[in-house]
């Protein structure tokens, strides 16, 4: 499936992908447990019209790369090259990074048809999100337009999806792979 505003990015250099995977999947990076899929600032109701998935509100583990990083040295060392690459290759020139967050979801039995709560990353129509897949995993990301599924992406290591941040989307929980790691980068126009 495809939608003109949602783009799969699959030409990220492998050295960037390697560095990120090594750091993010290591035992040195702190993860914070949240008992809801979404943060308080992301809540909202985005009804979707589909009968494939059961919508669930599952916990997650998150790591803040920017701002408020607890491990700024390694976060900068491994994730900054990806941000710089995005700026050079896939973003309009006036954009800068506003937030970078990692999400970790763990395997759940019989989760094939479970979908976390559909949401937007921001209501600002000028913001752009880049959802980067750190590792190969199951657990697709599903994108909606007017409540209908218009695009889905499978987590493939070293690839990502670029989309307007006000696009309604949701992630699935992995049921085959033990862990699904993504980095969600929000870009906005320079103030």
């Amino acid at each position: 499936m495809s939608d003109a505003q949602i783009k799969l990015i699959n030409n990220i250099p492998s050295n960037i992908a390697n560095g990120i995977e090594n750091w993010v999947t290591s035992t040195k990076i702190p993860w914070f447990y949240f008992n809801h899929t979404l943060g308080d600032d992301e809540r909202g109701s985005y009804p979707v019209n589909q009968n494939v998935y059961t919508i669930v509100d599952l916990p997650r583990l998150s790591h803040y790369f920017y701002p408020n990083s607890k491990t700024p040295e390694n976060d900068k060392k491994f994730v900054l090259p990806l941000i710089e690459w995005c700026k050079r290759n896939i973003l309009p020139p006036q954009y800068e990074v506003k937030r970078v967050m990692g999400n970790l979801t763990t395997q759940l039995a019989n989760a094939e048809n479970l979908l976390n709560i559909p949401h937007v990353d921001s209501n600002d129509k000028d913001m752009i999100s880049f959802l980067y897949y750190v590792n190969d995993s199951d657990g697709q990301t599903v994108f909606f337009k007017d409540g209908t599924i218009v695009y889905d992406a499978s987590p493939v290591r070293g690839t990502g999806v670029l989309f307007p941040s006000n696009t309604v989307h949701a992630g699935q929980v992995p049921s085959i792979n033990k862990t699904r790691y993504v980095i969600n980068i929000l870009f906005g126009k320079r103030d």
Partner: protein
Amino acid sequence: MRIFNVDKLIADELEKNILVDCLPSYKHLKSTAPNYNYNNKSTTAGGIDIVNVQGFTNPIYTYTRHFPLYGKYEDMVSKINTPLISETSCLTKLIFGLRDQYLDSTYDIIRVYMNLMTIGTRYGVLDPHPDIENEPDAVTFLYYVNDSDGDTFIFNELEDKIMFRYTPTKGTGIIYPSGAIHAASVPMKHEVRSALNIIYCKDFFQRRGQKIYNEYVRRTNKINKQHSK
């Protein structure tokens, strides 16, 4: 083996601090005594399958990580990881409160870990292990942060018999000798299982010299005072 309870206010505050506010955790593969040799090749313990599950931990206070393999005793003192203890007053109250209520001040606090496991896909126990070896005076208090399944099991030395079993209940915990072979099991109903593993040992620092003991006392008194106001 013995069960303990803590005040509801502290239990609520701990749950909030760890699972809502929240304390970070790090992916880990195994949680055991340093250099513990898993020499039991059995695939079961007490008749339950042993499973390899990814868990998370926060070595809040990790004296034993640096003992005695990673440096001189003098170096160890400077590596005591106290910031998280001192930031979280309910944790301090728990750690000192348990010692004062169930032990006495000759017991030193030598390790505090927060462990967290998310709901699993296959039931079983994690690799059975002791918390510490060769310290007969070490005692573990395993405190349950939230209500969960994923019972804790204590086994005999051969790991073929269950000696004790306890279901994680918020605000309660179990006390056992730190050398006891034990394991958590995988939660299959609750989304998360979190426990604090607190180890005390009688005269642990004093046995390592006056200088180290004085430093330990100075640091712990400072933290304790900060939160007893």
